[in-house]
């Protein structure tokens, strides 16, 4: 094949520098410089694109825009909500069209996709306020950094783990939550026997892939994950081991019937809907789960008996047993946005705004000073696990960007659903992903 692999590797390296992993549970440096220069009094109108379409979510941004307008009467912000599944495509088109079409402020997930926007010169560099940079963990900040520069402000973090119904666990005769894969396997068998198994929304791909990600986080050392992200290659044998461990677990048939024709969210028949209606006992998800499940309960209220436990540890795993996988939801400024955009994002990152955001979205705020607003037991447990993590890893598909991420997700689905029986196929899929241009 004639293409040049160094290019793929170089951009993967930038991803590593950018979104990658690994915060040592930590405090950030106080880098105080609020970005305001030039004529701050000229009348400015900015557009904001959010992927939230629900009442409280949109209302949060409208309120924030009004509050900011009160502080800065010359700045008006127009909130526009774009359906989540349409969001990436519409944003990409608008950014391609550039000035005039691109939103000034936009929802941002970070990782490989953000890196592509940075490399195309479509995002504006940001300066975090002292409050934001000291109160938001460096791990969450790093998701929105590329080459040491900041391009987004995190509003919430989404630590991963198993969200379960405490009632159904009790009914199946389980007393505690599992801490090893062996425990999880025997618990899953009891849950299956009780008619309320664990669930996975295989139809959407990524929920199944998250199982592999978590096995990789447990089986691979921090160093091996770093190297994989910078080289875009699964070179360390731990990635094959993660596939083998996943295969052993899946062979015990822990999941619901016909899991690969079940979607993850959105209807009563989805895994979140099944959990909300006590038809399945739990699933592996990020911390958006309480909100998603709450929307699908019969009375549209949060699931009362929702619990959380972190992913159990594997035998001889090289990864730290406390290591966390997570993502973050944040906001960026386009390259054409006025300077007030930066100020507005710092305003959103204040503890006051982030706790309002957390309430509106049932999310865990990124700003530590706002984390007291997390009240439900499951989210609290997830937050505690995230704060105790020795280091954390970005969701692998976000980290690698959609190119390698999609190849990885496809390979994991094929492996878990039995189309391919060899865990090596997952490793090969990642290593060969860059052949397609």
């Amino acid at each position: 094949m004639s293409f040049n692999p160094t290019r793929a590797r170089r951009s993967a390296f930038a991803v590593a520098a950018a979104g990658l992993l690994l915060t040592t549970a930590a405090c950030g440096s106080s880098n105080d410089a609020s970005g305001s220069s030039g004529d701050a009094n000229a009348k400015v109108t900015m557009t904001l694109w959010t992927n939230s379409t629900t009442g409280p979510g949109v209302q949060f941004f409208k309120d924030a825009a009004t509050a900011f307008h009160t502080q800065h009467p010359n700045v008006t912000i127009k909130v526009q909500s774009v359906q989540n599944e349409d969001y990436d495509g519409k944003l990409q088109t608008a950014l391609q069209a550039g000035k005039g079409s691109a939103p000034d402020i936009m929802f941002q997930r970070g990782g490989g996709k953000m890196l592509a926007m940075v490399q195309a010169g479509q995002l504006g560099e940001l300066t975090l306020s002292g409050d934001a940079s000291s109160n938001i963990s460096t791990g969450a900040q790093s998701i929105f950094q590329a080459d040491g520069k900041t391009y987004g402000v995190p509003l919430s973090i989404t630590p991963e783990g198993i969200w379960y119904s405490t009632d159904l666990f009790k009914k199946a005769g389980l007393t505690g939550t599992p801490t090893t894969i062996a425990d999880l396997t025997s618990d899953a068998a009891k849950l299956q026997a009780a008619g309320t198994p664990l669930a996975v929304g295989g139809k959407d791909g990524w929920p199944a892939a998250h199982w592999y990600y978590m096995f990789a986080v447990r089986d691979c050392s921090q160093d091996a994950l770093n190297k994989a992200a910078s080289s875009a290659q699964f070179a360390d044998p731990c990635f094959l081991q993660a596939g083998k461990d996943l295969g052993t677990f899946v062979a015990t048939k822990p999941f619901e019937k016909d899991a690969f024709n079940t979607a993850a969210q959105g209807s009563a028949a989805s895994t979140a809907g099944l959990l909300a209606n006590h038809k399945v006992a739990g699933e592996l998800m990020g911390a958006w789960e309480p909100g998603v499940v709450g929307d699908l309960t019969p009375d549209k209220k949060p699931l009362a008996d929702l619990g959380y436990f972190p992913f159990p540890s594997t035998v001889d795993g090289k990864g730290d047993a406390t290591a966390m996988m997570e993502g973050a939801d944040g906001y960026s400024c386009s390259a054409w946005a006025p300077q007030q955009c930066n100020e507005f994002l710092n305003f959103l990152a204040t503890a006051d705004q982030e706790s309002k955001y957390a309430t509106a979205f049932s999310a865990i705020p990124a700003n530590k000073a706002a984390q007291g607003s997390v009240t439900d037991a499951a989210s609290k447990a997830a937050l505690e696990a995230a704060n105790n993590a020795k280091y954390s890893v970005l969701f692998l598909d976000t980290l690698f960007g959609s190119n390698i991420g999609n190849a990885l997700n496809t390979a994991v689905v094929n492996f878990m659903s039995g189309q391919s029986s060899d865990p090596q196929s997952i490793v090969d899929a990642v290593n060969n992903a860059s052949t397609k241009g």
Partner: protein
Amino acid sequence: MSETPQVTSALASSLDTTTVGGGADAVSPPAAVAGRPPRARASRRERLEITLLSGPAIVVFVAFVILPVIAAFYYGFYRWKGYGPPSDFIGLHNYRVILTDPEFHRAVLHNVEIAGLSLLIQGPLAILLALLLNREMRGRSIIRVLVFVPWVVSEVIAGTGLSLMLPVNGAINALLTNLHVFGHVEVQWLGPHLGLWTLMAILTWKYLGFAVILLMAGLQNIPEELYEAASIDGASYWQMQRNITLPLLGPTIRIWAFLSIIGALQLFDLPWIVWGEFNLDRDGVSTMATYMAHYGPRTGLYGYGNAVAVVLFVISLIVALLYQRFVLRRDISGSVTDGGRR
């Protein structure tokens, strides 16, 4: 998706020519009656009329069919994630990867299977239904509605409904279980063994109405006198259908088959929605279009996706041209070969 327009392209070009030919014919007689030198005046009016009538169609055709096809060719030569202008020129690399990818081969095979099975299943069924519905009979309007409604329902709505009914835990198995005839039913309708046949059942249900409409329109054009003459000669009902209806319905059947083949080659929405992106290949219902969406925009590989679109376009074009050359030639000979030249 950029592949949809070329159905129109083949039809549009033949229709365009037909319109132009008809227009010219209609203009000539008055010119001759007027007694002046007919050539100059007629040709100026002719040209004006040709421009006015075909201009808008040509503009739309170029802007929304030709230019996108050229753009797809262009982007297909790049490694491009869709951010910023494409800059990493990789020549024919994408085409080499596509043509050697076993997953793409399977997708093409599924397209061929779907096209063939559609003709074999829907063709005879549609002819029988059209003949049936063409007769005066009790309950005819109900049957008509039942046949046509699925065709009118949007693919997305039908697909979403079916994707909730067909899984193992879905309504169809529950219904079969509740009949208490088969015991506890857990059929994997969407699984690798039944997938293709489930898809064929869905497609037949969905598109049979279209075939029946076309064929019923064709039946209207068969002169009643032929049947009268045949019945005077003592022909039976079935003899009449075989010796009058079927041969005279030929052109309609051939056009329907053409549309059906092109539709099968470009099939996207129903399998994508009912099975879901990650299940298509395993369950044997992936198509070239779903392959394109999966490895193009969904993977953020816009260069690669465009190259797949070009391959899909070329395959469809070749099939369309061969079909026109060898099957449709007789039916359209008057309009295409010498239209407008008289």
